[in-house]
């Protein structure tokens, strides 16, 4: 349509610089991760050995899993503080129930994942039908779930069936299973991202009222997202117990705030509707590699805390000012 020519030119003119800035900002976590890995590898070449990578991922996996789950709650405009409780509960359940579970340890694993999905689903119901702000609802259920963990297993202990530990610390086709899990996680996300359900999920997080206007039923979508968050947290608890071969009924709480940090550093907005598990994996890996670099440099853990905090503030502030620039 030739008569639209001037408009087209105008459209192309204005947003071009904005787009470049947005692209650069979006790529920043990737650049950071690659840079950090390069530094890490240069200082300590052994860490790039696949076996070492596998081992490091194995110990970082609970954070990665919790953060990935948390991403889903945040994508629909929520937040889930109860993941800490669910991790603890799942860890406690595995260490106390799996050895004697009727139907064997694998049935126990499936049931524990189910418990996570239900616990997350309860959060979702409180947030939707219960009309509670996610922060408050999950603050309450955090207390409940972590309490249940202590009821199940009052202090660290219990036993984890060997076959479950073997799977978590084992290898397949020459690579550590932790690496495979990460690959599957990212791959599954990329496939899921393209499903109509994912579009609804992003739509609800981006603007719930408009999504409803477009015929998306936002309650089921939100409940599903929170439920999946619980499922991921339960998986994190299983992994934690499997790799440490013991039940840790208090371990989950320490993962709540780092999981949010990983998400934010990766680039998912706390406002909801933008981001994804792929980004969160990058954010979590940045945190893990940072810890490694600090250790290699012989610095105290203090330094890791400080760098992480500064990174967190810096990333968000950078995005904030970029947005401000766009507005003017």
């Amino acid at each position, binding site marked *: 349509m030739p008569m639209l020519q001037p408009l087209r030119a105008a459209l192309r003119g204005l947003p071009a610089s904005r787009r470049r800035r947005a692209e650069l900002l979006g790529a920043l976590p990737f650049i950071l991760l690659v840079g950090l890995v390069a530094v890490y590898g240069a200082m300590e070449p052994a860490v790039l050995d696949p076996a070492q990578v596998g081992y490091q991922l194995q110990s970082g996996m609970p954070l990665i899993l919790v953060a990935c789950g948390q991403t889903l709650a945040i994508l629909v405009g929520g937040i889930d503080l109860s993941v800490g409780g669910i991790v603890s509960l799942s860890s406690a359940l595995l260490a106390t129930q799996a050895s004697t579970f009727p139907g064997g340890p694998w049935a126990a694993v499936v049931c524990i994942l189910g418990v996570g999905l239900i616990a997350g689903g309860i959060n979702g119901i409180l947030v939707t039908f219960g009309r509670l702000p996610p922060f408050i609802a999950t603050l309450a259920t955090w207390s409940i779930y972590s309490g249940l963990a202590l009821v199940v297993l009052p202090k660290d202990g219990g036993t984890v069936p060997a076959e479950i530990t073997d799977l978590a610390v084992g290898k397949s086709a020459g690579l550590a299973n932790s690496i495979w899990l990460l690959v599957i996680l990212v791959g599954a996300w990329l496939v899921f991202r393209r499903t109509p359900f994912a579009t609804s999920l992003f739509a609800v997080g981006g603007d719930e009222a408009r999504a409803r206007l477009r015929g998306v039923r936002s309650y089921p979508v939100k409940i599903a997202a929170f439920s999946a968050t619980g499922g991921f947290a339960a998986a994190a608890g299983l992994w934690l117990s499997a790799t440490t071969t013991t039940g840790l*009924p208090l371990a989950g709480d320490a993962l709540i705030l780092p999981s949010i940090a990983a998400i934010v550093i990766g680039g998912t907005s706390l406002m909801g509707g933008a981001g994804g598990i792929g980004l969160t994996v990058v954010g979590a890996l940045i945190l893990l590699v940072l810890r490694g670099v600090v250790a290699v440099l012989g610095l105290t853990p*203090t330094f890791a805390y400080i760098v992480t905090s500064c990174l967190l503030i810096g990333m*968000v502030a950078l995005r904030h000012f970029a947005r401000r620039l766009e507005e003017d």
Partner: protein
Amino acid sequence: MHLDIPRGREVLTAHAPTVASYLLTAILLALALGFAPYLLSGGNLNTQLTFAAFIGLAALGQTLVILAGGIDLSVPWVLAFGAIQLGNFGDLPGGVAIVLIVVLGGLIGMVNGVGVVALGVSPIIMTIAVGGLVQGYLLEFGRGNLYSAVPELANTIVSSSIGPLPLIVVLWGILACATGAVLSKTIIGRRIYAVGTNDRTARLSGINVPSTRVLTYVVSGAMAAFAGVLLAGFLGAAYPTIGEPYLFGSIAAVLLGGAAIEGGRGSYWGTIAGTLTITLLGALTPVLGLHQGELRVVYGLVILVGLYMARGGLLLASRQSR
């Protein structure tokens, strides 16, 4: 909110959530009196009130922050900072050390506030990050889990009492009344409510939104540090995780007090009820033969019940005033 004593049914609307939170406190109080009256007699009562004072002080700043539409997740770390720093300042005269710690706590709060208003970092993230910074500092300088050098003054504050009440409780009472009065009777109080209700309207009405926000974080930091000092004096020990229960405790007390997490609604009078509720729960569960795990479950359930009670009260009151 009201500038003057509201009349008639409006009293109900304005105060429904607070009334609901005191109702909850009263129910627990009745339970306590029924199951374990000794909990509330003499020395035990004072111990419970002392526990309440720690939560109440940590929740004081949290109340202001939440009323102004924010949240402070750095409270446990700043509290631990106060506790541990007391030992690090062992060489200073007690009074100077305490004042210095409270000021430093306020400065940490200011970092929170400035990050939120000037860097555009959301309160959740900013206070997590600052909490992380403080945590890093504590791991470096608080490695010895126990210390002995509790300054004279901290001991004195903790062990002395005024009349039948421990000094800590009296201090909390004074600060509580001051906070309650500031929130309902002063210009600053109005500004905090205005900013928390709608910061856009507040700004266009000439209110300095950033400085109001920062102020709430400063108070939160200072009060958390002060609570840490007292807690260290009380326990005679300090360790980096000393503040952990107060993340949940401070927020839960505010919410059980009927405040809205979105800001603009609530009061410190409500938070006091929330504080007492949490303390009573903590005192009751062992009596009922319940352990740490069950206590946490009960905490969570009571929060849910409390939230719906506050909401129900609000609904009921607004329906009546139609």
